[in-house]
């Protein structure tokens, strides 16, 4: 089956000799070219799930398939693009050389669909090609990391809060830029975000997580028309979906909190 398939995946970590479950029985499907978004509270295992899809480590139980193959194979075939939660640029390389890194690892046989120079301009870093990462702001570093993840034309793109460090305007610009690039390449994408609006704006499917242990509590099908635009957010269906996702997310909060807040504000 093409696309991404995650079946009943669990992961436990060893902590002080105890085995602590981080993810418990997570299942999700994305067809090839679909865009998935993960939202959920901090520490619920979103980054952990992305790492297992990228074969950084294996699940404790369950199966993951990328276009029908195990993650290990997808990784070895250089099919995975990953944007880490921290930009993780190599400080001794310039912006352009950081973006080039995956091509260097692929070797000279690979001809990129988009040149590193073009990608650097595309993420709005034109003029900063020869700057060192320490000369960039956090958001600029993250955009550089996005360019790096795209340069080798991956078949699956994993994004861990890629736009967390961006201001609102730049964030929307990058949202639409990413959607545009992806529409051309038909790359399957899975993105972690803390913004419900961003999840609904970009994704075909939104997976809402709960913590302790991490699990999916709700899956939203976003049937808003593409291409998505700023106007999409005025669509009543958009707002309905955002409300739905928010309720799914907040249903995890114990109800006492509402009372406590109300109480605190009344005093």
């Amino acid at each position, binding site marked *: 089956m093409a696309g991404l398939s995650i079946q009943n995946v669990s992961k436990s970590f060893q902590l002080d000799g105890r085995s602590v479950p981080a993810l418990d029985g997570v299942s999700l499907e994305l067809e090839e070219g679909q865009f998935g978004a993960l939202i959920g509270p901090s520490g619920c295992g979103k980054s952990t799930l992305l790492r297992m899809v990228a074969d950084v480590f294996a699940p404790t139980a369950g199966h993951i398939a990328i276009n029908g193959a195990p993650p290990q194979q997808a990784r070895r075939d250089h099919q995975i693009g990953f944007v880490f939660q921290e930009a993780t640029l190599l400080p001794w390389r310039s912006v352009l050389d950081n973006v080039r*890194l995956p091509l260097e690892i692929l070797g000279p046989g690979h001809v990129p669909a988009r040149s590193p120079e073009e990608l650097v301009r595309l993420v709005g870093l034109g003029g900063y090609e020869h700057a060192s990462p320490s000369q960039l702001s956090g958001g600029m570093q993250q955009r550089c990391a996005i360019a790096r993840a795209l340069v080798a034309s991956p078949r699956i793109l994993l994004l861990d809060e890629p736009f967390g460090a961006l201001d609102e305007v730049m964030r929307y610009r990058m949202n639409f830029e990413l959607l545009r690039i992806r529409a051309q390449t038909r790359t399957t994408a899975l993105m972690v975000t803390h913004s419900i609006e961003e999840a609904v704006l970009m994704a075909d499917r939104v997976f809402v997580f709960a913590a302790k242990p991490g699990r999916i509590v709700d899956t939203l099908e976003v049937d808003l028309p593409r291409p998505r635009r700023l106007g999409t957010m005025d669509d009543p269906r958009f707002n309905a979906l955002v409300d739905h996702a928010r309720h799914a997310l907040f249903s995890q909060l114990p109800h006492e909190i509402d009372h406590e807040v109300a109480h605190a504000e009344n005093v």
Partner: protein
Amino acid sequence: MPRTSERRVLEAASRWLAPAAVFLALALALDQWVARGGAPMTIPRPLDVLHLLLREQATLLHHLGFTVLTAGYGLLGALLLALVIGVAAYAWPRVEQPLLGYGAVLSSVPMIAIAPILSVWLGLTLGTRVLITVAICFFPLLVAILQGLRESRASEQELFTVLAATPLQRFRLLALPSAMPFLFVGLKIAAPLAVLGALIGEWNGAEEGLGVIMLNAMFGLQVQRLWATVVVACIVSSLTYAYICVIERVAGFDRTAQEAT
């Protein structure tokens, strides 16, 4: 707000002029003290030492050449050895701990005591003196390289995992560049040590070299000459340090310079 060129001058002044002025003042004070006869015999007048330095410039430089050569070969040899062993330890992590253990013990052996034995065994050759220098410089370089090769962050390692880099690519593109700042720290420690190693080698028997003049001056009770050689040794040691700093900056591994721009 002064313009940048003016500020440069001011910065250079505070960096070089102030210490130089302090040094000069101390030297002159010392000179006066010795001139008035208040000082012991073993302390010469700085001005006399300066005169001697200028008068015997040619001889000193001639001998210095040999010392610098020994130090250079020794530092280079130690660097190559530390790189080979460091990379081997990177490839086989299990040997790292035993290696550091042996290295620490060996490096705690006082070279000044071992040097005569080495000289007796191996003869009074350039090779022996270089070997002594290598022995002195090796351990700080090894520690720096081992530490440096392990220095990359976990997230950087993850990046290379996701990119399916081969072990060789991981070494060349991640471990080695991460190690460079550490390597330079090691070199800054080892370079002045190399001068020391060369001097120790020469004390144990050589025809030419700064250490030879030093020894002769000492036994001949030529106080000014002895001090002149000490001054030269100090200057050369500091210059080796400065030399490494320059290479570091030119090669672009000076992180502090990068962040300042």
